[in-house]
């Protein structure tokens, strides 16, 4: 019963961060800002989802594998986002700038 409440709480927090990442992907104005939203919010959502699964699985080999997956994704997710961002910068994709209100 207590485990169910903990799982529900962790899943709600995870879905909040996944939702923030999805909102950033839809709403942000250019590639770099979208990347900023995805790389951090999605990593946190992933960690909370895996925490909920660890609470549900108990102490077993599955938990060890889940922890390994969490460590791997915690390193791999920012690495791949960084590689994509560096590629965009080297190709010369210009960052988004807010236009001045009266550019005359």
């Amino acid at each position, binding site marked *: 019963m207590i*485990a169910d409440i903990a799982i529900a709480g962790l899943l709600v927090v995870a879905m909040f961060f996944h939702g923030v990442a999805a909102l950033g992907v839809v709403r942000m104005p250019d590639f770099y800002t979208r990347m900023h939203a995805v790389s951090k919010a999605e990593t946190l959502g*992933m960690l909370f989802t895996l925490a909920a699964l660890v609470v*549900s699985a108990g102490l077993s080999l599955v938990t060890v594998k*889940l922890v390994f997956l969490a460590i791997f994704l915690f390193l791999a997710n920012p690495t791949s986002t960084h590689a*994509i961002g560096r*590629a965009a910068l080297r190709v010369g*994709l210009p960052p988004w700038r807010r236009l001045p209100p009266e550019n005359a």
Partner: protein
Amino acid sequence: MSAPSLFLVAAVALLALVMVYVHRLAVGPTVFDRLLGLSGFGTQTTMLLLLMGAVYGRLDMFVDLSLAYALLSFVGAVASARYFERGGQDR
């Protein structure tokens, strides 16, 4: 509410969020937007696979599948980022 139904609700919510990444993958103005959508799609699908494993009660099997999927997704994202860094041409 028991644990499998909680995971089912979370999986349905995550499926709705995956559609956002598919949208970015389809309409992304630049190729890097599409790559970012693909990378996010990979992570979300890994989570979705684990949640469905918890729903079916076979997490021991699905965790291996999601480990392999996460590795492939990471290697694919980094390799295609290196490819498009050179402007998308072979040397």
